C-alpha cells in the first residue's frame, strides 16, 4: 500500500514560508501569489490523496499513524512528532486545505494593492502549517503546538495593519484571551498525562477508563480544563470577547481563521477527546449548556450590530455555540458536520462581505450600503446562497447540519437546549436576512464618493465565491439518509465516534416526531426571514418603532451587554493598578527598602565608629598606649 505521506501536507505551506523568507522581495507579487497558492493547492491535492487512500481501506483499518521523529522523552514521559489520519482528521484536512486554498486565491485579488503583500501570504501560509499540524497531530502535545501556532498567526494577522492602534490592540487581546484558554488546556493535558501516562490519542483514550473513575472529580476537572481551552480558541462564553475585535484584520483572514478553520479547533478538540468527555457526564452537560448559552447570547448581540463584519463575527460565535451544543448532547458527528457546512457558508459570507467592502472602498457600515444587488450581481447571488444556508432552509447545507444538532438535542432529552437552539435559529435567520436586506436590497445609502468607485470584484475573488456557493448548496447533501443506519457522513465518522454515531446514546424517535422537528425548525427559520424582510424592507418604521419601544434593550444589545467595559473595569484596570502598587510601593519601598535598610544600618555603625578615626596621630598613639596599658594590667592581674 502506498503511504499517504501525511507529513508533507503541513510541510508544504511551511516550505513556502521558508522560501518566501529566503527569497525576500525578489519573488515579486506574482511569484508570491503563485508560491503561496501553489503550496496550499498542493497540500489540498495531497489531502485528497490521503483521504482517498483512507477510504480505500476497510472500516476497521481507517487509522494511519506516521511517526516523524521522537520529540522529547524524559523519564517515563515521551511525545512524538507524529501524524494521524483517520476519518475525523481527513474531514478536517479537506476542509482546511480546500477552503484555505479558495481563500488564498481570493486574497491574491483582495490584497492586490497592499504594500505588505508578501508578509500577508507569509503569515497565511504559516497559519496553514499550524492548522494542519493541529488537525493531523496524533497526540495532544503536538496538537497544542498547532493550537498555539494558529493563535500566533491569528495575532499577527489581526494586527496585520499594525499602524492602526485598534488592530494592534485587537491582536494582543486575541492572543491573551486565547492564552487564558491555553492555561486550562495545558493543565488539562498535565492531568491526563499524569494519570494515564500518555498524550498519544490511542494510548490516552484506552488508558483513560482504567485510570479514571467514570464521572469522578479528576476526569471532570481535566475535561473541563480542556474545555476552557476550547472556549478560548472557539470564542465561547466566557472567552468570546476577542473574536468580534478580531475583525480588525483583513477580511480574508476573518474568513479563513475567524470563521472557517481556527475557531473550529475547539470543536475539533472536544470531538477528538470525545471518549474522555463521555467519561465525565457533568463536563458534557457544561459543554452543552455553554454552547447553547453562547448560541443564543451571541445571536442577540448580532441583532443590533451595524458593522457588516461584526454581525458575521457574532454569528460565528453563535454557530460555534451550536457545534458545542452538539458535542455536549453527545452528537459529535453532527457537530463536525455543522463545522464543515459552516466552513463553507461562513467563509462565503465573509468573502462576500469582503467583496462588498472592497467594492465600496473599505466601507463596513450597513447603514451606508443598500441596493447593491444590481451593482454587484455575482457577489449578491453568492451571498444570498450563503444567507439561506445559514438560515437553515432546505436543501441548503446549513439546514441539514443544524437540523441534526437540534435533533440530537431533542433525542438525548435536552429539551431546554433544544428550545434555546430553536430560538437561536429564529434569531439567526432574522439577523442574517437583516444584513442581506440592508446591504443588497432597498434604496442605496452609499456615499457619493464610494458610489463613484463602485465595481464588481475581479475574477480571482469571484471564482472562489462561486465555488463556495456551490459547496454551500450541495455540501449538506451527504447528510441525506441515502442508506440505513445513518447517512454517509455519519457512517464515515463511525470509526472515530463509535457505532451508531451521534445516536449511540440517544433514544430513537418515531418518524412522525422527526418530521415534526424538521418542520418546526424550517418554520422557525422562515419566521425569522419574513420578519427581517418586513422590518427592514417593507416597513422600515417597524424597526424604529421596536427600538423606541424598548430603548434599554436596544442599548444593551448595541453595547454588547457592556461585557468589554465590565471586564476592563473589573479585571484589567485593577490588575494594572495593583501591579503598579506592587512595584512602586512593595518592591521599591518594602523589599528593596529592607535591603537598603540593612545597608543604612551598617552605615550608621560606621558613622559612629568613624568618630574614633580622627586623623590625628596623637589620638591613635593615645589609644595605642591605653591598649598597651590595659593589656599590661590584664597580665599583671593573673
Amino acid at each position, binding site marked *: 500500500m502506498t503511504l499517504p505521506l501525511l507529513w508533507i501536507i503541513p510541510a508544504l505551506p511551511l516550505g513556502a514560508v521558508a522560501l518566501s523568507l529566503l527569497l525576500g522581495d525578489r519573488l515579486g507579487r506574482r511569484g508570491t501569489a503563485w508560491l503561496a497558492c501553489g503550496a496550499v493547492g498542493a497540500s489540498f491535492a495531497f489531502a485528497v490523496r490521503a483521504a482517498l487512500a483512507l477510504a480505500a481501506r476497510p472500516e476497521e483499518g481507517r487509522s494511519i499513524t506516521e511517526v516523524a521523529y521522537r520529540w522529547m522523552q524524559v523519564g517515563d514521559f515521551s511525545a512524538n512528532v507524529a501524524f494521524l489520519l483517520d476519518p475525523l482528521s481527513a474531514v478536517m484536512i479537506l476542509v482546511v486545505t480546500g477552503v484555505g486554498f479558495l481563500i488564498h486565491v481570493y486574497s491574491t485579488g483582495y490584497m492586490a494593492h497592499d504594500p505588505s503583500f508578501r508578509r500577508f501570504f507569509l503569515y497565511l501560509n504559516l497559519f496553514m502549517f499550524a492548522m494542519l499540524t493541529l488537525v493531523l497531530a496524533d497526540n495532544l502535545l503536538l496538537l497544542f503546538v498547532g493550537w498555539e501556532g494558529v493563535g500566533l498567526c491569528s495575532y499577527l494577522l489581526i494586527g496585520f495593519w499594525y499602524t492602526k492602534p485598534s488592530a494592534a490592540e485587537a491582536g494582543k487581546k486575541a492572543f491573551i484571551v486565547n492564552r487564558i484558554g491555553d492555561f486550562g488546556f495545558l493543565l488539562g493535558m498535565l492531568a491526563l498525562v499524569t494519570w494515564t501516562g500518555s498524550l498519544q490519542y490511542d494510548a490516552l483514550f484506552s488508558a483513560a477508563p482504567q485510570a479514571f473513575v467514570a464521572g469522578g472529580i479528576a476526569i471532570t476537572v481535566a475535561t473541563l480544563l480542556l474545555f476552557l481551552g476550547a472556549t478560548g480558541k472557539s470564542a465561547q462564553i466566557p472567552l468570546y470577547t476577542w473574536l468580534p475585535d478580531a475583525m480588525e484584520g483583513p477580511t480574508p483572514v476573518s474568513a479563513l481563521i475567524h470563521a472557517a478553520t481556527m475557531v473550529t479547533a475547539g470543536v475539533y478538540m472536544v470531538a477528538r477527546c470525545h471518549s474522555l468527555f463521555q467519561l465525565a457526564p457533568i463536563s458534557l452537560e457544561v459543554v452543552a449548556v455553554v454552547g447553547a448559552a453562547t448560541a443564543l447570547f451571541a445571536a442577540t448581540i448580532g441583532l443590533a450590530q451595524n458593522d457588516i463584519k461584526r454581525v458575521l463575527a457574532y454569528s460565528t460565535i453563535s454557530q460555534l455555540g451550536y457545534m458545542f451544543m452538539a458535542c455536549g448532547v453527545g452528537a459529535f458527528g453532527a457537530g463536525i458536520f455543522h463545522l464543515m457546512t459552516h466552513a463553507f457558508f461562513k467563509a462565503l459570507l465573509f468573502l462576500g462581505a469582503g467583496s462588498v467592502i472592497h467594492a465600496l472602498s473599505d466601507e463596513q457600515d450597513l447603514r451606508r450600503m443598500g441596493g447593491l444587488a444590481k451593482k454587484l450581481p455575482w457577489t449578491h447571488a453568492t451571498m444570498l446562497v450563503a444567507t439561506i444556508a445559514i438560515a437553515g432552509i432546505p436543501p441548503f447545507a446549513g439546514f441539514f447540519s443544524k437540523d441534526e444538532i437540534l435533533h440530537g438535542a431533542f433525542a438525548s432529552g435536552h429539551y431546554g437546549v433544544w428550545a434555546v437552539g430553536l430560538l437561536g435559529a429564529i434569531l439567526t435567520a432574522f439577523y442574517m436576512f437583516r444584513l442581506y436586506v440592508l446591504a443588497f436590497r432597498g434604496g442605496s445609502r452609499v456615499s457619493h464618493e464610494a458610489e463613484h468607485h463602485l465595481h464588481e470584484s475581479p475574477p480571482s475573488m469571484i471564482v472562489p465565491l462561486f465555488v463556495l456557493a456551490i459547496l454551500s448548496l450541495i455540501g449538506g447533501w451527504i447528510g441525506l439518509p441515502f442508506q440505513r443506519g445513518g447517512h454517509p457522513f455519519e457512517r464515515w465518522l463511525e470509526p472515530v465516534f463509535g457505532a451508531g454515531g451521534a445516536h449511540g446514546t440517544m433514544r430513537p424517535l418515531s418518524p412522525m416526531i422527526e418530521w415534526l422537528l424538521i418542520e418546526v425548525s424550517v418554520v422557525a427559520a422562515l419566521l425569522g426571514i419574513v420578519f427581517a424582510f418586513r422590518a427592514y424592507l417593507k416597513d422600515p418604521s417597524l424597526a424604529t418603532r421596536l427600538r423606541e419601544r424598548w430603548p434599554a434593550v436596544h442599548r444593551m444589545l448595541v453595547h454588547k451587554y457592556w461585557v468589554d467595559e465590565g471586564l476592563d473595569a473589573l479585571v484589567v484596570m485593577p490588575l494594572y493598578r495593583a501591579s503598579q502598587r506592587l512595584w512602586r510601593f512593595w518592591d521599591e519601598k518594602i523589599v528593596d527598602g529592607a535591603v537598603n535598610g540593612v545597608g543604612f544600618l551598617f552605615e550608621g555603625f560606621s558613622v559612629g565608629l568613624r568618630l574614633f578615626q*580622627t*586623623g*590625628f*596621630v*596623637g589620638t591613635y*598613639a*593615645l589609644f595605642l*598606649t591605653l591598649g598597651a596599658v590595659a593589656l599590661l594590667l590584664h597580665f599583671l592581674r593573673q
Partner: protein
Amino acid sequence: MSAPMAVPLSWMLALSGVVFVIGLIGVLVRRNALVIFMSIELMLNAANLAFVAFARQLDSLDGQVFVFFVMTVAAAEVAIGLAIIVNVFRLRETVYVDEINLLKG
C-alpha cells in the same frame, strides 16, 4: 657572671622605665613630628637598656644580640621617617602632626 654587681638590676630597670615614660609622654603630647620621632627613639633606647640589663643579669648573650637588631631597625626607621617628614614638609610646609590629618595630599 662572676664580675661584682656595680649597679643593681632594679636601678637599671627603673632608669629604663623612666626613660620609656618620658618618651611615651613625648609622643603623646608633642606636636612636632621631629620631636615625636626623637621621643620614639628614647622609648626604643629604654627598651635596649632593659635588654642589656637583663642580659647581664641572666648571663645570656641573647639580649645583647637583640639590642643590635633594635638599633638596626631604629636606624632604618629614622632614615625612612625623616625622609617622610622632609617630604611632608615640602608638601605642606609644616611638621605639626595636628595639621596632617588627611591621607590625601
